[in-house]
């Protein structure tokens, strides 16, 4: 039986796939906290996209899709580079969410 991917591995794989299909996507950061013990706690990605409509932190929630290798629910928060610059101290001002490690395209 194949070992289930960790949340970080799934986040990295999602990030890579998102970079591959969206040329205006400049950076992706993992949003913390990440609860590795709770499979229902979603992976949260902060995606910095050039040209997006600026609306602040407006999370979009996706359900898990195990058949396609996405074992956990996920959340995408899209912001513009300008909005990203305005985030000081890494706090998103939404629950206790903070900006974690950057996920790279490769």
């Amino acid at each position, binding site marked *: 039986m194949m070992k289930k991917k960790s949340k970080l591995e799934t986040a990295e794989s999602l990030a890579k796939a998102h970079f591959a*299909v969206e*040329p205006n996507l400049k950076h992706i950061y993992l949003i913390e906290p990440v609860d590795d013990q709770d499979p229902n706690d979603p992976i949260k990605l902060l995606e910095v996209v050039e040209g997006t409509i600026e609306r602040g932190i407006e999370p*979009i*929630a*996706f359900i898990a899709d195990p058949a*396609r290798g996405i074992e956990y629910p996920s959340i995408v928060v899209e912001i513009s580079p300008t909005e990203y610059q305005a985030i000081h101290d890494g706090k998103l001002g939404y629950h206790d969410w903070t900006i974690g490690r950057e996920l790279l395209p490769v």
Partner: protein
Amino acid sequence: MQATDEEWARSYARQALSDLRARETLVRANAEKCHRLHFLQMAAEKACKAYLTVKNGHNNVRKSHAYVARNLPIIARQFYAVINPDRKQARRQVSEIKQLAHEIEVLAPACDDGDVRRDNSEYPWEDEKGNIYTPCEYSFPNIDDGSRAIVGLIKLIRTACESYSR
């Protein structure tokens, strides 16, 4: 007991699927383009609301119509990135959805781009020269509703809503 945001989200998704079915009925009945587009706009809006409601709360998303241009491309990115292993094709699909999403959003009368886009699928409007336009007689030249991109958009809304309506 009050309904949860998850229940609201499932309900939006199911209603979006119903809007798509209504659109198909209108297509088969050869209804005017404005009606076909109206149901497509409503389906797109409800699909976006389904995905927004879980984390933002029903009360925060229920009133606005201006969700499609920003959020449909994000939904497209997730779905095509996961569903389509052909990256080049997936990139094209995301790009087509981005181009269409704004045009679909402004079909709602409340979304007029700051009074720049009065054309909409429901109510007559007047241009700056005083000409009145009637939706059922208007050609909506920015949207070819038989195009590959529209077929892709409908498939995306259906897939996204089916995944949420279970």
